Structures are given as C-alpha cells and as structure tokens.
C-alpha cells in the first residue's frame, strides 16, 4: 500500500485515459502502430516480393534477427530507465572469443565453456552497472568506453585469428528448426522463455514499475521506495548476461569465434527498440512493440534484399523509418492536445505526457 499512495494523484490526473474502453487502449497505442506496420509489411512482401513466400525466408529472418531480438529485451528495460548500453555488441564479441578459446584452446566442453562465457558476460554487465549506478557516471559515456574496452580485450586475446572446430552436434543445434519444415529455428525457444521472463519482470512486477518510474522521474522513484541504483545495476547485469548468450549463439551459428563478430550490432538493437515505441527519454515503452520493431526491420531488410536492393538503399529506408518513428512522438503531441481540447475540460489534465513529466525532474 505504501507504494500505491504517492501513485494516487498521478492516477487521478490521468483518469480519463483509463476510461477508454479496453480495445481502444490496446489498439490506439504506438506499439499497435508498429504491429500494424509489421503485418502490412509481411502481407505486402508476400504478395509482391518474389521469393518472399519461399520456405527459407522466415527461417532466415528469425535466425538473423535472433541476436537483435534477444539483446532488445534488456535494452528495452535499460532505455526505459533513461539509460543506454552501447557495449552489448562488444560484450557479444568478447564472450564469443572467450567461448571459442575456452573450448578450442582450453579443451573445456561446450557446456562448461558456455556457462563460463555467460558468466563473463554478466561480469561485463556488472562493470557497466557499477560505474553507472553506484559511481553515478552517465551511461552513454561509460558504455562508449566499455564498448571499445570489451572488443579491445577480445581483439587482444585473438588478434585477427579466429577459432573454429566446434562440435557439429552443437553448431547444428544452433541452426536446427524446432519442428522440421517449419520456419522456427531453435533459438526461438530461449528467446520466448526470456521474452516471457522480461515481460513479467517489466510489465507485471514491482521491479518493472520501478523501472518505469525511474525513467519518468528518478528522484520521485527514490522517494517512493525504489532502489534506483540497484535497479539500474541489475538491468546492466541482465544485459551483459543476455549478451553472453548471444555471443555463444553467434559463435555456434557461424561456427567461428572472432573479435569482429557482431560489429555494429548495438546500434541495430537500439534502432529496433526505438522503432518499437520506447522513448529515448525513458519512462515509456512496451516489449511487444519492441519485438514487432525488430521483426519489422528484419522483414523490410529481407524483402529488399530479395528484390535486389543494395545495402545502402536498405539503410536509407530503415534510417528514414526510424527518424519518422522518433519524430512521431512530437508530431502527435499537438494532435493529441487538439483532440483533448475538443473534448473539453474532462481531459484538460492530460496534456502532460511523458516528456512533460520528465521536465518535472
């Protein structure tokens, strides 16, 4: 109860928002726009892009997007707190290198090497988390540093060499389909488990409410009993741990451990998270939008690749889409205000949205 009390005025203020019927709240959200776009993109591609309805398309789509899907889960939570983690792709590379060296040079079994590598990912995340949450440094500066540091360590360990020779049973497992002739690769199982876990954590737990509250106003969060530092630290450790999992997946699916693995992946992850409706200022966002955002980018890439576009054109399209999606928040604000004004005094209290609340801090 003590947590709910300070919440009460906020609820009263936005009461009208909750008075809309249930279906409206589901449909009239930014997340739903992304989902609608995703469906539109799939329908359009299936009907007019040659080979898109082929048997391999969705399999490759899931397999190529798996790393981004996985990394987007903790990234969503981190960005909702108003922080950012640019070092995830470097953590992926470092864990990939260490996994390869532990298995090939160290002679450890794949399972043991994987557990150690995931542990290393967690340590990487803990370094970020400690510096951001307890030392109080800005996360963008810390993770730019560790982005260079982690990949640098990986490159220092392996140089330009690579490690191969993982047992076929494992590399095949990484590429196998859950059901034969269906487009769902094995990696979707851990992803679905993690996605459910993160959805429960973020949207259905006190911890998750703390995450949103920190993003809206971390001082207020502190006063309502949220341990801001601990919450942030936990999220960075989770990001590192998931990056460790992705490092092993990347290594097994390509069969090669190299320090150049997943170069630039962090930006793809952040792009997908923002496209999925998460506010870069924190406090707003939902996992279903993010998952749809990742898949939307994946579908557009696949469709354009299949119709023979070059990587530059694809980047232009996705870049424009991203800018539009970020702009849409500010473009929609005046529209909302107009709508609110036309409804009269009943909605007068609703003009302050996340950006407005943010300015209170």
């Amino acid at each position: 109860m003590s947590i709910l009390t300070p919440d009460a005025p906020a609820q009263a203020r936005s009461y009208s928002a909750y008075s809309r019927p249930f279906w409206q709240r589901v449909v009239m959200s930014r997340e739903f726009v992304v989902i609608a776009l995703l469906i539109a993109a799939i329908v359009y591609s299936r009907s007019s892009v040659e080979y898109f309805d082929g048997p391999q398309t969705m399999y490759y789509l899931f397999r190529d997007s798996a790393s981004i899907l996985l990394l987007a889960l903790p990234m969503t939570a981190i960005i909702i707190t108003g922080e950012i983690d640019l070092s995830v792709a470097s953590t992926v590379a470092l864990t990939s290198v260490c996994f390869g060296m532990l298995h090939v040079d160290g002679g450890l079994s794949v399972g043991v090497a994987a557990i150690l590598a995931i542990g290393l990912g967690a340590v990487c995340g803990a370094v970020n988390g400690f510096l951001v949450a307890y030392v109080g440094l800005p996360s963008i500066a810390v993770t730019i540093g560790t982005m260079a540091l982690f990949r640098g360590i990986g490159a220092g360990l392996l140089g330009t060499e690579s490690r191969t020779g993982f047992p076929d049973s494992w590399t095949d497992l990484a590429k196998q389909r859950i059901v034969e002739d269906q487009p769902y690769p094995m990696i979707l199982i851990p992803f679905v488990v993690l996605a459910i876990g993160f959805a429960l954590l973020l949207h259905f737990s006190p911890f998750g409410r703390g995450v949103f509250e920190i993003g809206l106003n971390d001082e207020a969060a502190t006063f309502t009993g949220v341990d801001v530092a601990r919450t942030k630290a936990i999220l960075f450790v989770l990001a590192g741990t998931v990056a460790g999992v992705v490092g092993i997946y990347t290594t097994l699916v390509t069969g090669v451990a190299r320090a150049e693995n997943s170069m630039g992946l962090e930006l793809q992850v952040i792009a997908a998270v923002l496209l999925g409706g998460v506010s870069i200022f924190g406090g707003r966002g939902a996992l279903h939008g993010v998952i749809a955002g990742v898949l939307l980018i994946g579908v557009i890439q696949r469709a354009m690749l299949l119709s023979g576009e070059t990587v530059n054109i694809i980047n232009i399209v996705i870049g424009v889409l991203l800018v539009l999606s970020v702009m849409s928040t500010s473009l929609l604000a005046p529209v909302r205000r107009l709508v609110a004004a036309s409804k009269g005094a009943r909605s007068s209290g609703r003009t302050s949205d996340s950006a407005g609340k943010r300015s209170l801090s």
Partner: protein
Amino acid sequence: MKLQNRRLSTLAAVTLVASLALTACGSDDEGGSGGSGGGDGTTVTFIPKNLGNPYFDTSNAGGEKAVDEFGGSYEEVGPAEGSPDGQVTYINTATQQGRNALVISANDPDALCDAIGEARDADIKVVTYDADTNPDCRDLFINQADSAGIAKVQVDMIAEQIGDKGEIAFLSAAANATNQNEWIKLMEEEIAANHPDIEVVDTVYGDDDDQTSFDRTAALLQSHPDLKGIISPTTVGIAAAARYLSTSDAKGKVALTGLGTPNQMREYVTDGTVTEFALWNPADLGYLAAYAAKALVDGDIEGEGDTFEAGDLGEYTVGPDNSVLLGEPFRFNADNIDEFDF
C-alpha cells in the same frame, strides 16, 4: 481494478504480437523450391569481399562480360564492409532466389562454410575466387596465381631490366610473412638455377609499412652502391621504393620491379622510375570465374582433371583441391597501365 485492467491490456498485447509474429509467417510448406532461377540463361551472383572496392569492380566487370557472352544473367551483391556476417546474408538470399551459381571472394575461410553448404544443398554451384574458403566447402577455387609463377615472373622481369647481370636485393614485407618468404626462396632458387650472373646481396624488411619500406630502400642503396635492381614482392614495398627512387639520383639506374597495383604505380611507370611490374589481371580472374561457374552448372566439370572452355582465355583444367589456376601473372607497363583502374 483499473490497475488490473492495464495489466490485462498489456498482457493481451504481448500475447497478440507473439502469436502474430509466429503465425503471420507460418504456412511454410508451399512449393517454391527455387532452382529454376527464373530466366533462360544461367544466373550467376558475384559476392565480392565488399562493394565499392576498385579491385573487385575490375574483376566483377570481367565476370559480367563473361556472363553476357554466354547469355546468362549477372548480379553483383555484397556487404558495404568486408565482413563474413554480411556475406552470409547475401549467400542466404541467393539461396532463396535459387540462383544457379555463386562466385564469392571469402572474407573468412570458415565463417561462410555453413551458408555455402546450405546453398549447395539447394543445388547451387559455388565458386570462390581471389580468397578461398576451406577446400571442402566450395565446388571450385579460381586461384589467381601460384607461388612458382609469381617467383618466376619477377625474376624474369628483373633479368630483362638489368641485362641478366649484377647485384640485386629484395625488399620484403615482414620477416615472418609466409607468402613473401616462400616467394623469395623460390626466386633465389630460380636465380641460382637459370641466372648465374645475378647475385642476391641483401634481403630487407619494410614490414608492409610505407615509411619503413621507404627508409629501408634508402639504406639499401647506401650500403650497396653497385646495386642494379630491387625486387619487392609486396604492393606496399614496391610503391614506397618507387617513391624513394623517383626523387633520388638512382632513378633510372636502379631497376625496380615486383608485385604492385596499377593505381599505386601509375605515377612511377609514367615518369620512368619503374619499367614493368606484375600482378594478376583481376578482370581475367572474374571472367574465368564466371565461365567456371557456367561449366559447373552445365555439368561439364565435376572434379580434378576435367577441362572447360573459358571464352577468350581458352581452355582450363581443374587442378588439385578442385582449384583452377588463372595462369601466368600479368605484367603491367607503360603500354597497358592506363587500361586498369584498381
């Protein structure tokens, strides 16, 4: 209640997107196995290490010419940066499109093998050129040059330029560079066997660094005043040595040859510092790769010992490890250097 409703809506939305994502893309069993490739002719996709690289622009122009000659359909795709992950995406895409053949310059000998394996399972022929993968994962490798040929052409050129007599030295890359050491060993053997009047007086190492190579060249000329020629079997070394020679008194007196690229060497060939240097012709490399892909698709060649026709280049035989040797390295001199841009 309100709070629960909000939770409910989020839960509903999460389930909704999960189910959509998984079902909207289901129904996978429909035909479309690809393989026919769409047109009448052979469809060939070139995947260079990266796009916008003059070397590959030249070689793939050769490939396109060959594909046009045999009436196939040519396509060039590739990553913007030279990464194996990027190439994998394009190999997968070509697999889906059911192209007949892929011609790839591999960014990593191992990382592409799985994707190539999937392509070959879909009955696509895979030829590597310029940079090979592991021999067991592709159908054929077009080798631009073998060590013996590279060694011989450089000795021949220096012998012609200094009148088959006098002191020469090597300006190599790093002291432990595998390729360079092998070539230098072969060149020494060739000189000992066929050019008794040529004496190798020194081998210096420029570490494939422009300034180091430049300084080593200067030192070489000082310590060996009677030096007649320098062989630099590395593109960085020959360009740095040419830069030094072009401004020194030794210009025109000390011959310089080796392995270089036309764009780096054009200036020094034009001003007379360098008479002739060698490398393979990338355009021929792409041309041969395209014809080899065509021969594989048509079933004309299957393994070692089989022969095929490669248009203007004539007949080729598949050698050990399923590789085809392009032939003698190509000599670049004032007469032909302006035809190349890489």
